[in-house]
Structures are given as structure tokens and as C-alpha cells.
């Protein structure tokens, strides 16, 4: 389990595997491509963080895998969980995995719980619907998971309604709900974005604990601080493509892709002098409607080369990491 950490790829025992996944949305003004041929894998008990700015396609990637694309969205490629195909029209097959072996947590805790159902009912719903537990067992398990997410006074929480809880508490209930059926993979789509910083730390800790007990976590976020707290590996997305995958420690120590470097530089640091300006990334990401020629980051890239504007760099292995960048390739002594 631990051995998978520290390498750009998981190897043959990947629990969750995405191959060449593309996501397209049909809009009145033509097709928009949100995800362009992304491949990644997650091993058992591993936490992969997928980072990128808004619109980079990181959320759509996972929504597509779970069949949750908005109207007009279509996914191509392959996404397998434990060897079983998630994409495609077979709804029943996908549903049999969802909620039992694969669970998802969403961004907005305010809306993630049904307002008129008491917490206890919501927690038990999936287990009861699948006939996995009887009411008594579901109750016991509900108390367990609420304690696991460190919600104090779990017994009386079961009778409360979502509006009686704070945002952080609701997000923890949402995570507890995902943990009910002991899933093997948890997909967390920006689980901390809507929370304040202290609560963020608690939520990340809860996820890290679940990971340490063997749960694989796919964490979608744009918050590098969150990534540092939990991720084993990090995949950086830009304009619908993965531009760099690396073990978290290596990525933070020495980002290879200029975009990763820029992302890291834009995180405020406590040890920076107050006079120093926070580095932003100049320019705008390309609009998802048009496929840019060459590297999508080229117009904003400080290390841009002539080749970047003409040829799109492919994702290539360099020791422990994979990077899609001409400049990095050249610096590693590969061809011109």
C-alpha cells in the first residue's frame, strides 16, 4: 500500500484507472471540451490530489466517471474501478458500485444534505436501500461514522436536521455518509472550498485518517495548502489536460512544469516579507471551446520556447514524475 507512494504511477494493481478520458458538452454555441484525453490511476489506500484553477476540468473528470455530467455532457474513453467499467450506458452496473464501493463528497456542504430528512435517516438511506444492513446495524454504523468524522454528541445528531448544523459539521456529515458503506474509493470534489480555514484543517484531518485506514481518496481542489496536508501524489491539470503528475513531496520541492511552479508561487507564505507582492499568473486560461495549437499554457508561460507555440508537449516520464513541457524536456537533456 505504502509502496505506491513516491512514484508517478501506481502500477498494475491500480484500484481506479482512467484512460484517455474526454468530456464534451454540447452547447448552443458549439461543443465545449472540458477534459481532453486524461489518464490517471489511483492505488488502494492512496490519496491523489487533482489540482488546477477553475475550468481546468478537474471536477468534470470525476463527475464523468460517476455518470453525473450535467445535461448535454458526454464522456469518451475508459474509467475502471477494480477492473469494472464505469463509463457507458450500463447504469445499473455503475449504480451497484456507487454508494457502496465508490463514494463522493461535494463542494457545498450547505446543499449536500436533503433539508427535510433527519441526519440519521440520510446516513442510513443507502445501506437500507441496498439491503446491506438492517435498521439496527445502520444505526450503530451511523454512530461509528459520525464519531470517525469527529462530530461530537453523535447520538443526538441523528435526530437533528441539516439546518441545525454548521457548514463544517454538515461537510463532516456528508463525509460520514460517504463512509457508511466502507467504500474503497472516496472522491472529494473541493470538500473544503466552502469552509473557513480552521474547519478546513479538521475536514482534511478526517480524510487523512480515513486514508490511513486504507481508503483511496481522489481529492479535487485548487488549494495547494490542502494538497500538502494529505496528498501522496499530485496531478496538475491545465485546460483539460494533465500537465504534471508527481509525488507530493517532489512536486512541492521542485515543480517541473512552469504552470505548477506558478501555482505554488501564488500561494501566500507566512515567511514572506509583507512588502513582497503575491505572485499571480498573468493572463487568462484558454477558453474551453477552442483547442489551442501547441501548449495551452504557452501564452502565459515565463519559460516559453519556440516549440511550445507549435507542438503540444506530451506527458512524458522523467524518473518519478510525468511532465508535459518542452522546456522541462530540454532541461533534462532530451532532444531539442
Amino acid at each position, binding site marked *: 500500500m505504502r509502496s505506491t507512494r513516491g512514484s508517478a504511477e501506481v502500477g498494475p494493481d491500480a484500484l481506479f484507472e482512467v484512460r484517455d478520458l474526454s468530456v464534451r458538452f454540447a452547447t448552443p454555441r458549439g461543443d465545449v471540451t472540458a477534459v481532453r484525453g486524461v489518464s490517471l490511476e489511483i492505488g488502494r489506500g492512496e490519496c491523489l490530489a487533482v489540482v488546477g484553477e477553475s475550468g481546468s476540468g478537474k471536477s468534470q473528470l470525476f463527475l464523468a466517471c460517476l455518470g453525473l455530467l450535467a445535461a448535454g455532457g458526454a464522456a469518451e474513453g475508459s474509467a475502471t474501478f477494480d477492473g469494472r467499467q464505469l463509463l457507458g450506458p450500463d447504469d445499473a452496473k455503475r449504480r451497484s458500485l456507487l454508494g457502496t464501493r465508490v463514494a463522493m463528497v461535494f463542494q457545498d456542504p450547505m446543499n449536500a444534505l436533503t433539508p427535510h430528512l433527519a441526519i440519521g435517516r440520510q446516513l442510513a438511506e443507502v445501506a437500507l436501500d441496498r439491503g446491506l444492513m438492517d*435498521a439496527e446495524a445502520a444505526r450503530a454504523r451511523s454512530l461509528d461514522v459520525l464519531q470517525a468524522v469527529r462530530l461530537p454528541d453523535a447520538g443526538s445528531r441523528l435526530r437533528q436536521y441539516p439546518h441545525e448544523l454548521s457548514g463544517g459539521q454538515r461537510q463532516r456529515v456528508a463525509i460520514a455518509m460517504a463512509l457508511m458503506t466502507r467504500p474503497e474509493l472516496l472522491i472529494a470534489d473541493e470538500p473544503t472550498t466552502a469552509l473557513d480555514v480552521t474547519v478546513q484543517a479538521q475536514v482534511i484531518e478526517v480524510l487523512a485518517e480515513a486514508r490511513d485506514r486504507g481508503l483511496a481518496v481522489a481529492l479535487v481542489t485548487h488549494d495547494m495548502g490542502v494538497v500538502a496536508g494529505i496528498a501522496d501524489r499530485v496531478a496538475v491539470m491545465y485546460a483539460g489536460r494533465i500537465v504534471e503528475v508527481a509525488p507530493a513531496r517532489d512536486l512541492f520541492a521542485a515543480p517541473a512544469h512552469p504552470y505548477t511552479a506558478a501555482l505554488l508561487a501564488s500561494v501566500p507564505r507566512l515567511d514572506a516579507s509583507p512588502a513582497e507582492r503575491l505572485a499571480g499568473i498573468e493572463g487568462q486560461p484558454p477558453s474551453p471551446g477552442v483547442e489551442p495549437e501547441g501548449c495551452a499554457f504557452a501564452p502565459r508561460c515565463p519559460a516559453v520556447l519556440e516549440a511550445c507555440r507549435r507542438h503540444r508537449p506530451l506527458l512524458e516520464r522523467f524518473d518519478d514524475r510525468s511532465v508535459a513541457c518542452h522546456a522541462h524536456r530540454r532541461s533534462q537533456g532530451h532532444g531539442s
Partner: protein
Amino acid sequence: MAGSIRASATTEGTLWGDARRRLRGNRAAVAAAAFIGLLVLAALLGPLVSPYALDQVDWTLSPLASPPSLANGHWFGTDSNGRDLFVRVWAGTQISLLVALLATAVSVVIGVAWGATAGYLGGRVDGWMMRVVDVLYALPYMFFVIILTVVFGRSLWLIFLAIGAVGWLTMARVVRGQALALRQREFVLAAVALGLPARRIIARHIVPNVLGTVIVYATLTVPQVILFESFLSFLGLGVQEPLTSLGRLVAEGALEMETAPWQLMVPAGVLALLLLALNFLGDGLRDALDPRLG
């Protein structure tokens, strides 16, 4: 503590269990419910208590229309044909309550199921389901009822059915609009992500969230239905003499408004009180079903 947790496994935490508890805390709603209960009792027992029959003309009166009086035993007076209004008002209340209850129930059940399904599934299914509603809307209502009565003969149940069968159209549209909005909410997405089947998501996550609107709309439907019944009866398609309904009694009373005002005031008063109580109850129910207001 252990006892209260155990209780939560039964009624606490369920939608209706908690709603009942919250409803009990709403004094206006409880009073309204009690009053409706009284009216129902009166409607059932009133005709039995009175010495007069529904269609019995009291020839001892002169003129035949007698104002309310304790002396001659006509507590609510008599109508222009000398029939006892006390008996007729309560018999009419029976009919009106039945129509209101059944027709509203039919329209709520069909309307909510249809609208929630169309709104949640969306897309082409929604398109077709709502086109069906549009087509039914376009049929002239009276025409529809007349055909029904001609084909199946005149019966009380047919009126319930006919009124309910048309009433659900608006309900379906109202519910569908709400379901469309709810479909985009994250808790519905979360339910899909948990792999719950559509039928269960509609029943547990969509319908309960539209109940507030449904109840308010249903409360508005009740008076409409009662009045529509009297309109049908007036055309000779509804309840027939000697049976009567509140709507009919009001219509007949209105003709004698100047000479025998009690003929209007008594049934109109009962109808108004009934509708008022229903409104209070509906309001209370809506609040009770929303845990945020509990």
C-alpha cells in the same frame, strides 16, 4: 438518553413523525383541525338528530319559507319549498367535504407523481409528459365532463373523478417546475452519486421538498373544487335533488337573498368557516413539513 435515542428509531426523524410533532405545537392549526373535526361530526350526525327528512316539506308553515326558529323546530329555518335547512345544510356539507377531499386527493396524487417524475427525469421524457398535460389542458373542461356523464351515467363518484382528473394538470405543472429546480441541487446530485435509483430519489429527495408548495396549492384547490361542484350541479351534471351540496345551497340561497337572507347566510357561513379552517390547517401543515421552521 438511551430511551430518547431508541424513540428516534421509530417516529422521530421521519418526515411525518416530526411533522405531526411540529403541527401539535401550532395552536391555530390544532384549533382549525379540531373545528374541521366538529364540522365533520355535525355533517354526519346533524341529519340524524333532526326530526325532518332531507326532502320533507313542512306543510304546517305559512309561508313555506320560515326564518330560523326554535319554536317550530327549524333551527336554521326552511328553504322556499318548506324543507328543513338544518338537515339540508349538513347533508350538503357531507357532499361538499367528500367532493373536496376526494377530488383534491386525486389531483394531488396524480399531479405530484406526474410532475415530480417529469421534472426529475427532464429531457425528452419531461417534454412528452408535459405535452400530455398541455393536450389535456386544451380539451374544454365542460365538454370532458359532459362526455363522461353521458358515457358512464350520472354518479357522485364520477364528479369526484372528473374534477380530480382535471385538477391534477395544474398541480403537475407546479410540481414539475419545483422538481426541475431541485434536480440541480447538490443533495440530489449526492443521492445520484450514492447510486440511489431514480424512483427512490423522487420519493425521498424530490417529493418531500415540494410538499410545502403542494399543500398550499391543495388548500387553494379545495374551495375551487367545492364551487366547481355546485356549478356542475347547477348545469344538471352534478348532485341532483333531493341531494344537495353547500355550493348548491349557496346558489339557491342567493336567489332569495332579499326575502329570506337566512337561506344564503347559513350555508355560506358554514362554507366560509370550513374554508377558513382548511386554510389555517394547510398553513400549519406547510410549516410543519419544513424542518427549518420547526
